């Protein structure tokens, strides 16, 4: 899925546009430099918040509400995109689907197979859900730089409080070593 162009459409394209637009004309700051940066973080956020969405094909497709990531850029970041894909496949439906199946989704189903295509949809749904969440957490209520900073901090703090305080970096490293 990551060796072709990728296109955001509709409301997601709008959100991606806002996330990659200068939020302060004076400092020229952007929340994300590139569209692909949104594509990288969006499935993680979607998965963390358990939010998904479907592609917004409503309305007329115009240039303004299409955000396209070209193939070359996708190839350049395919390593991390694939890693994200693996994470999503391993943890999606983890209470409903067997580990064996999730391992297959993560590592085994080859391109072009129906299983893989189903998995790709799942992955994209998290991407789109994540975009929605990013909008909610970063863009909503923000009109100036300090608002964005606050949103960022609140967003990160929320994650920290919800997840990170229980994570021991040492345990993870140990797990990596022992696996």
């Amino acid at each position, binding site marked *: 899925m990551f060796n072709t162009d990728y296109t955001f459409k509709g409301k997601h394209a709008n959100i991606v546009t806002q996330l990659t637009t200068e939020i302060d004309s004076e*400092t020229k*700051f952007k929340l994300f430099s590139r569209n692909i940066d949104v594509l990288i*973080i969006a499935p993680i956020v979607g998965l963390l918040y358990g939010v998904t969405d479907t592609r917004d094909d409503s309305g007329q497709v115009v240039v303004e509400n299409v955000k396209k990531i070209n193939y070359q850029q996708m190839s350049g970041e395919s390593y991390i995109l694939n890693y994200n894909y693996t994470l999503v496949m391993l*943890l999606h439906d983890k209470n409903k689907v067997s*580990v064996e199946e999730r391992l297959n989704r993560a590592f085994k189903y080859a391109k072009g197979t129906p299983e893989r295509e189903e998995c790709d949809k799942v992955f994209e749904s998290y991407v789109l859900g994540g975009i929605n969440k990013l909008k909610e957490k970063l863009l909503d209520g923000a009109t100036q*730089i300090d608002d964005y900073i606050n949103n*960022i901090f609140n967003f990160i703090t929320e994650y920290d409080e919800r997840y*990170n305080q229980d994570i021991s970096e040492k345990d*993870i490293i140990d*797990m990596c070593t022992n696996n």
Partner: protein
Amino acid sequence: MLLKKLTLYNFRPFKGEHELLFSTDKEKNVTLVMAENGAGKTTLAQAFQWVLYGRTEGFKNKSVLNSLIEKEMISGTVENVKVELELEHNGVEYVIVRNQTYKKDINGITKQDPSTLDVINKQSDGQTNFNSPLKNVSLVSSILPESLSKYFFFDGERIEKMAGEVNEGKSDEFKTAVQNLLGLTALMKAIEHLNPNSKDSVIGRYNSQIDEYGDQQTRELRDRIYKANEDLENNQKRIEDLESQLKYYNAEIEKAKVELSSYAESEKAQKQLNQLNMELQREKEHKANTIATLMSNFSKETYNYFSRKLIKDALEILKETDHIDKGIPDVRAETIKFLMDRKKCLCGADLSDPTSDSVQHLMDLLKYIPPQSLGTSISQFVDRSNGNIRSSSNYYENVKSQLSTIRGCSLKIEEKENEIGDIDKNILNISNEKITNLKSRQMDYEKTVKDFEQQLINLKAENLQKEQERGKYEADINRLQMKVQRNQNIEIQRQYAKAAYDVLRKTYDYKENQTRESLEKEINELFKQIYAGGMTISIDNKYRITTYVNELGDDNTNLDANTAKSYSIIFAFIVGVISLAKSKVNNENDITDEYPLVMDAPLSSFDQRRIKNICEVIPSIARQVIIFIKDADGNIAKREMKDKIGVEYEVALKDREIPLDSTITKVGEF
């Protein structure tokens, strides 16, 4: 004055002591001294001059010591010369004695001491008074002033001299006689003393003392003082003007200072504003930089940070599986298939033989690599997870710190902006413009004040100098005014002197004229007696004598007419003077007594009739007549004056072969 006795001691030709007793009889008032040639006739006449005044004018040899005695003197010896004159004057008897000492030194040279004068006056009670030398001279002068003496002691040589002058038309003796007569000498001396035409006279000296340039200099100095005063006045006006302006400008400077100080707060506020703006800018930059860092971190690292939870969950799932095997990372079944189809391994081994060990080894590997084996994929995933975890370890702390910094900056920015907002912008705007203007004006005023102060210093210095100059001019004027005052005093004195001179001159001229006329008249009266009206003279105011001969005829036949005429005039003149003097006795101070006539008379110059007339006239005019006369004339005189001769002497050499040793012999007393 009545001469009584003349005593000579070693005086010229009269060796030893000799004496002449003069006739004091009023009738027989003539003493006739007859002398042979060379016996000492003239010496006797001159003895009077010597004893009275110490004069030796007529002597060729100034030594009065008898030559024989002098010759006989040996070295170291002393000889004395003495002449003693006894006389009566105004009822007092005097003995006038003149001594002179002669010494012969070791070289045989005779030296003389100055002569000494003694005057002994005998009072009526017989007492004798001796006087001091100075008093003696004064006494002699009071008896007969030297200036007058020559008319009364009249020697032959002077007669000749005067005769010559008369013949030449000169008449100094007349002039002098008139001047000397009867106090006119004093008057003349007073006139000469005052004479305005003489540089050395009183008036001449006054003239020289008067500074004729004083007034002009004073005028010039006054002009300078006026100029200095004018300058000083102008300078003073300028000084007052400058001081007034200085007062104004100093007041303006003070006002500007006060005003400026009132704007100090604004200036302070301006500084504060600048400081706040600077700090605000710094905070903004700090905040912007921190935001930049935060944004950069957010954009790059949030993914890893958020992944941690998912990685942990994923690893926990994988932990429960045992699918991790010995596969070759990233080598999938498709890779092996590709090598088998190529029939050549990555290492170059030939894979064409399906039975070869290499092919068998690759076929075994298929069991351990995806898709047949998930182990490798899982293993790779774990490895990547390990890397991801490590890169986000401090993410949250960093963001928190950055956010804290950003918030701190925001607070400070707000604070600064509030402070800036608190500053009254109106004051700032007004004060800036006003301060600039005020400072500029203050500087202008201060420059003007400095300039004016310098001008004041210069003007005051100039005034000081001008005052000093004026003081000097005034001092000069005072000095000149003193001169002018002195000039005025001198002028007054000069006018007095001039007036005195005029009065004296007038008096003198009058008296002189009167005296001259009297003398002329007297002489002509005498001429009437001598010449019986045959000759008259006139003396003009220049004392030129003009003779008018009315009667010549036989009178001039046996005598040189001119000589006779001259001698006649002289005699007449002398006798006239005596006569005039006699007539003035009671009126004038100078002539206090009658005077004798002592004369060396060369009667032989006259003809018989004139001698007779002269001999008649002379004794009648003078109170006492002493005539020294040579033998020949003596006899004529003796004959003509026989009734008048009281005493007769004869002077002769003791020995005709030995000159310079005469003797005086009384030959008769009648």
